[in-house]
């Protein structure tokens, strides 16, 4: 497979995780593209306007990329803290629309501001890697880290609190779970993931503009989670990888490409209402594992 496609698939998986995090506690937030756009803008501005970051070599230093990621995470985190307090009182589709409204406001403001380059955006973003393979490795490490974080989260107290809120918010509150803080935690984590993903994407795409965080992106990333499955972090990762790759894999069908793509999005949830990756399916897979995959001892439940 072409390495550039792999990078975009990995970025898709990261965005899927960003949508998945609030959904784990039952919050349908579609703000991910907004934070993604902010992360990308931070990277684009810093790497093109701050000469000190450029280093001395021919490639842009990875340390500078990491610094951009930290700054993007800080900015998106703080923004998510403030906005989360405001919007997380909303429920269901109202929350979804409020977050779409935020994304749309951000897009329009970006278009109107001079320093973000308007519709043309910011171009000539320096490259930390010479090849797509470099980006692939970097993004893979990032994805592994975020997956690991999600996995830890699912097994620890805040993670279980999130699951409890998703199942029944009132019951969760009556068990002494601080529902507001838990939801806010998920929202902030989601924003951080989207923000740092934006940093990588901005370098990978060479240029950045307001269109990269729009309504379409909100819905597409939601499809990653729904089609992949929203009960374990593996679902959005798988959905993100698959749905980013699909339009490319469909290139041989030519002009019918997006029609087939639409059909897959339409039929997928009908066949797999729980998403492709469910705990049951994972268990079944595990039961039929080849012998060499056996663990020395069953660690059992935590």
């Amino acid at each position: 497979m072409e390495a550039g496609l792999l990078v975009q698939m990995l970025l898709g998986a990261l965005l899927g995780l960003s949508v998945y995090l609030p959904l784990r506690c039952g919050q349908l937030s579609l703000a991910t593209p907004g934070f993604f756009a902010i992360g990308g803008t931070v990277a684009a501005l810093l790497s093109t306007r701050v000469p000190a970051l450029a280093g001395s070599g021919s490639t842009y230093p990875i340390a500078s990329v990491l610094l951009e990621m930290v700054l993007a995470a800080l900015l998106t985190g703080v923004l998510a803290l403030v906005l989360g307090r405001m919007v997380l009182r909303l429920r269901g589709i109202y929350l979804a629309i409020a977050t779409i409204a935020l994304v749309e406001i951000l897009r329009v403001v970006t278009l109107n501001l001079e320093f973000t380059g308007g519709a043309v955006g910011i171009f000539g973003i320096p490259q930390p890697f010479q090849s797509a393979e470099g980006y692939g490795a970097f993004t893979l490490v990032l994805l592994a880290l975020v997956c690991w974080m999600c996995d830890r989260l699912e097994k620890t107290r805040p993670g279980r609190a999130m699951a409890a809120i998703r199942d029944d918010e009132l019951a969760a509150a009556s068990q002494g779970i601080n529902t507001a803080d838990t939801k806010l935690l998920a929202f902030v984590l989601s924003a951080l993931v989207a923000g740092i993903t934006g940093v990588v994407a901005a370098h990978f795409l060479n240029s950045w503009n307001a269109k990269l965080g729009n309504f379409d992106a909100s819905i597409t990333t939601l499809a990653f989670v729904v089609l992949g499955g929203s009960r374990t972090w593996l679902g959005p990762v798988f959905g993100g990888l698959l749905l980013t790759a699909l339009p490319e894999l469909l290139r041989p069908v030519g002009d019918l490409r997006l029609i087939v793509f639409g059909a897959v999005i339409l039929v997928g949830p009908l066949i797999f209402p729980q998403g492709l990756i469910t705990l049951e399916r994972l268990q079944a897979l595990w039961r039929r594992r080849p012998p060499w995959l056996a663990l020395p001892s069953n660690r059992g439940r935590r």
Partner: protein
Amino acid sequence: MDHLLQLLLNGLAVGAVYALFALGYTLVFSVLGVINFAHGALFTLGAYFTYLLIGGAVGANGLIAGLQLPFALPFWLALLLAGVGAAAVALVVERIAFRPLRARGSDPLLALITSLGAGVILVNLIQLLVGAESYSIPVGTLGSLPVALSIAGAKVRTVQLLLLAIAGVLLLALTIWIDGSRSGKALQAVSEDPVTAQLLGINSGRMIQIAFGISGFLAGMAGGLVGLSVSIAGPYFGIGYGLKGLGVLVLGGLGSVPGAVLGGLIIGLAEACVPADFSGYKDAVAFGFLFLVLLIRPQGLLGRPLAEKV
């Protein structure tokens, strides 16, 4: 005061289309509790149907390049039939993208994605068939009516007034139907509580089809009207309205018919009030307004407060 009147007229004309759009969403939402993302595509489809039915020819780029119907209907009839055509497609969308999920009692979230898929298919099918170029309903379609009228010093395009009038009639008819007829009351009963409605002998499957049919009809008519007022700007032309309509829907309160109308008019007027120097922020104003309203009134202007358990 001609400026104020001008503002009001502009706002109303735009708002009426938003309202029509949001009504389609709200009808489906009230019976199913989900948003139909294929609605924008139905709107687009209605516009193309209208264009074909008044005798318009297809351009050179699609699969059916050069096609032209052997007859040309008068505009009002074409518009009605386009509404019916869009309603038929809406029923197909319901059958394929919604009913299987409902039968299984699946998570409503899934319907967002299946209907999105249906919308992607429709939009790209349109492009495949008729190409991406824009089509226009001929300027002379409205016969001898003047293109613009002056009302107390304010200028308004006649077609906008017509659009406003037709939208008003449709909205009124819908309200009367919902409040005054048996089937309308049945629809309300289903949206209040599907299980009880079923117990009362209301066929909720049938009511859902009716809701989809009317919603598609409204979308088709709105598409044809906007197509007449401006032009059919390619297969993606419903998308912008789709997003705005969603905002209007939530602003008014999900599932509320008067809310959809009120929301449409408010956003139309709010956009009209954006000072000329800040015209670039127009789209943000609508959504900023929506955002603020949601913070103050989480269920929208006329929506019922949501129950704690969803």
